[in-house]
């Protein structure tokens, strides 16, 4: 175990890479999910069909296959991306395809009456989404989004298979050098566990923030009685 300490800087280096990939891919996934979710909910049908095809392709295959394709096939087709860029784009698109269904579901779950009230009050489309629909859809989307972000973190180790030195890659190196598989992998399993837990904690806070007005039935009754 003690010899593992000398490899700590390597693992830290890998951890930084893992966090970078996670954050950048999460941003891409969120943007993709929002745009594609809105299109899936209310878009012009040809656009909706194209987004539908994208979603089925990315959800129908493993992220590993997609990464492999981006790394070995895209360059042959003349598209060259840096490994980091290719990794975050593929992971972002992969998680974004699941996320767009979350966004679509959340928009669908905002009651019809809310949309109608916006018409009756003469809100513009932008104001309708900005002030009424999105805040309510957010509350519904946050819990599933938290799960997706944990999933995103959990697929980042795949980048170690395509030459990026993330936490898992460094762990493989350490394992080879120390021969101590148990300690090495246990260490990074714990690190991933902590990272996942942190993501979940952040989203819990967000959920509380967006739950404005969503009081329990009990307080509702109470207030009505007074």
């Amino acid at each position, binding site marked *: 175990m003690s010899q593992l300490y000398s490899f700590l800087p390597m693992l830290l280096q890998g951890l930084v890479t893992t966090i970078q990939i996670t954050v950048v891919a999460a941003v891409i996934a969120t943007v993709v999910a929002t745009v594609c979710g809105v299109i899936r909910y209310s878009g012009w049908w040809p656009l909706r069909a194209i987004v539908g095809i994208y979603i089925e392709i990315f959800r129908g295959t493993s992220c590993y296959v997609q990464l492999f394709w981006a790394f070995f096939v895209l360059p042959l087709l003349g598209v060259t991306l840096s490994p980091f860029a290719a990794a975050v784009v593929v992971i972002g698109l992969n998680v974004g395809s699941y996320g767009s269904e979350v966004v679509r579901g959340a928009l669908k779950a905002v009651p019809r009456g809310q949309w109608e009230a916006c018409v009756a009050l*003469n809100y513009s489309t932008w104001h309708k989404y900005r002030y009424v629909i999105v805040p*309510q859809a957010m509350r519904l989307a946050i819990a599933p989004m938290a799960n997706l972000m944990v999933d995103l973190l959990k697929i980042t180790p795949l980048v170690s298979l395509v030459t990026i030195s993330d936490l898992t890659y460094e762990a493989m190196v350490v394992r080879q050098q120390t021969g101590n598989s148990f300690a090495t992998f246990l260490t990074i399993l714990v690190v991933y566990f902590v990272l996942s837990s942190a993501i979940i904690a952040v989203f819990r806070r967000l959920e509380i923030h967006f739950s404005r*007005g969503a009081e329990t039935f009990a307080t509702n009754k109470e207030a009505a009685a007074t």
Partner: protein
Amino acid sequence: MTGKTNLSIKAVGGTGSSQVAEFPYRETRLAQSADKQVEFRSIEKRYGHHQVLSDLSLSIKRGEKLSLIGPSGSGKTTVLRILMTLETIQGGSIWIDGKPLWHEERNGQLVKASQQHLRRQRAKIGMVFQHFNLFPHMTALENISQPQRIVLGRPRVEADVQALELLDMVGLRERAHHYPAQLSGGQKQRVAIARALAMKPEIMLFDEITSALDPELVEEVLNVLREIGRTSDMTMLLVTHEMTFAKEFSDRVLFMDGGRIVEEGEPDQLFSAPTQDRTRSFLRKIIAAGQRI
């Protein structure tokens, strides 16, 4: 434009075959006299193959208080929703202040209305819903003040002051900072009325605004309506099952059945001496169900 031109109107949106309703544009405009604020002309409304309104015509005077009564499914709500642009029509046209609602004139042709045109026309209309449709993530005050700010562009202070005044009027000033989930049904509906009033519409639509409420909460909401009726000269169009209130409140009552207006008249006449069999049998059922008229 010459007097002979007949302009065709394209039916707007909707499902199924889009029909073309033709009518002499110029005549219509001349026929639109000053006191007719709203006019429905031969409206056709279908959901798929289900005809909900057929050849429905109706005009409403400025400042008129009009009640719509009739059995369930007769199309009362649909009339209000069409006027609020929540539903499209398959034929006919609607006119507000001499301008078509779903169409606008471009190069002498009536074409499908643009978003701007719809928003301009909608600004004259407000609606209160059966199920309130308050925004759950905003307090009572924000529900009333935000639409004024973002739609009418009023400064925040002015909008808040206006909102508080209206909350005062509906007797809920001390509930200003409560969320809808913390209010009773009657309180929610009073906030919703205040929210619609804050937008200063010329025409207000009320769709069975007391039927989702417990019986003991109905009166507090009706009192607010009485107050509005007494103090404002807004045109008010209400769908209601409260016959006593309709009789006391309205200038004119319309009885609808099967997507048509069967009978209309002043409340005293329509309730005490209906001329149509269907009206009579509807009123008998209402009385049998225990309502006083």
